């Protein structure tokens, strides 16, 4: 479904601040794979997601989604294939537009926008029904500006928007990191719900080891621009935080203590 082939990405290429963020990355996701991507600060997790989404171009390598090469496609064209939720809850929604207006924008992802009215009556009903089925308490606030919502509510709404039109790939970029633990759990639960319901192929970046272990069917760990671990199947199901720490130490060949705080929170 998603195929990242020999991808390299360097920031500030050719300057003194040159930093290689991705070094010849290869990663292939099968249809329905739910991969949790973990690693310390600067490991390249978010860079990889942004390269898939088209925020950054890459110097080398190719990216395929659903068999189609998207390496050169601009961000807004790739959006037809990709649903995204960001770390910053403010980033995924338009604050000064209404809840239903935001959903209507997402409902047209990948379609040509015309001079038809931006939201139809059927859509309003549909969105209301959808939100009430999720129990977020938003179904009676459909015309409220999204800026009035809490961070958790905005993140949940972004999640709904990302999956409203079934994406070929769902990219979750530390989407619970800015939330309090209780809200984070709720949003993760909601993510699981959407992913399971539609069998979405998902790449979820997280700092949190427990989240990385608990969710998904496959765990990929990055370190300094490389993929150093790829754990799937039964092995992933039986994984513990201690295992993961040990294997990280072995694979990266570094003292674990430095990264421990960053990884386990």
């Amino acid at each position, binding site marked *: 479904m998603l195929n990242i082939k020999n991808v390299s990405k360097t920031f500030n290429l050719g300057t003194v601040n040159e930093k290689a963020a991705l070094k010849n990355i290869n990663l292939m996701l099968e249809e329905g794979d739910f991969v949790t991507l973990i690693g310390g600060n600067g490991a390249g997790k978010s860079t990889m997601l942004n390269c898939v*989404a088209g925020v950054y171009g890459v110097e080398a390598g190719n990216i395929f989604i659903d068999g189609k090469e998207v390496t050169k496609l*601009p*961000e*807004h*064209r790739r*959006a*037809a294939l*990709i649903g*995204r939720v*960001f770390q910053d809850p*403010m*980033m*995924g*929604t*338009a*604050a*000064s*537009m209404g809840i239903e*207006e935001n959903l*209507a*924008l*997402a409902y*047209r*992802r*990948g*379609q040509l*926008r*015309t*001079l*038809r*009215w*931006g*939201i139809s009556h059927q859509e309003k009903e549909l969105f209301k029904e959808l939100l009430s089925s999720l129990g977020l308490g938003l179904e009676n606030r459909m015309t409220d500006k999204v800026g009035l919502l809490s961070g958790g509510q905005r993140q949940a709404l972004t999640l709904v*928007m990302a999956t409203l039109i079934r994406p070929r790939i769902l990219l979750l970029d530390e989407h619970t990191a800015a939330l309090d633990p209780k809200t984070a759990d709720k949003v993760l639960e909601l993510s699981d719900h959407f992913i399971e319901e539609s069998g979405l192929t998902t790449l979820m970046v997280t700092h949190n080891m427990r989240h990385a272990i608990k969710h998904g069917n496959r765990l990929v760990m990055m370190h300094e621009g490389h993929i150093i671990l790829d754990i799937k199947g039964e092995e992933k199901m039986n994984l513990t935080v201690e295992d993961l720490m040990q294997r990280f130490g072995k694979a990266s060949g570094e003292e674990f203590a430095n990264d421990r705080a960053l990884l386990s929170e």
Partner: protein
Amino acid sequence: MLQILLGAVSLGLLWAVMTIGVYITYRILNIADLSVEGSIAMGAAIAAQGIMKGMNPFAATAMAFIGGMSAGLITGALHTRLKIPALLSGILTMIALYSVNLRILGKANLSLLRLETVYTGLQSMGVGRNDSVIVLGMLSVSALIVVLYWFFGTEIGCAIRATGNNPQMARAQGINTDNMIILGLVISNGLVALSGALIAQSQSFADVQMGIGSIVIGLASVIIGEVLFGKKSFFSRLVSLVLGAISYRVIIALVLRLGMPANDLKLFTALTVAIALSLPVLRGYLEPLKKSMKGGR
């Protein structure tokens, strides 16, 4: 006094068209677009020269609109395609247009006295000079409000609003934000030029200098409208822009009447806008003061 007020209202209605253009860039797209300083004079120049050459005044006004749109296209292309910061793109277009406008006019200003304008039709039916401007101004502003209310409710209009509000989100939802910025700038500058064409015809001359400070007047009108007449729904916002533009003209007429020298007008306008824009910060400073006064007995 009534005459002065009516004059202010008629001028305000014509400037309202420009204010709506400024609103589209400043509030909807979240860009301070300075090219309007050039496009307002461009609209005046095109309309005046068209009329001088014997064109139908309505056709000349339409041409002014198109001319303004092309100016917006240039600013948009500089900003999105060549990645020049929005503010600088606007300044470049503004400066370039000064020369362009001089070429269109052939000299620094052009008189339209005794020539047919969009207002003469009404005047020949016995409507007074000022009244004809008010009637036509009302008609164009009302039509504009209806059209823009519709447009910004369409899929493309929503995409422009989302782009101004949160470009990352817009791109993630498949919106080509560059094109939306260009489109917004095109519409905005078209309206500003249209306003310039209407103003030139109402005052019977076009001047290459008439754009100087117009962005500040536009901003002042936007802000006065928001402060005085609220910003609830999009429709009431559009109406508030018109009322804001009229209020600005009325305020200016009043302070001039009270004896402020006309030369100080631009300083006065700039101060008004500076104070209005800093209101949130000023409130922040005043809040602790108020509290201490309440608590301090």
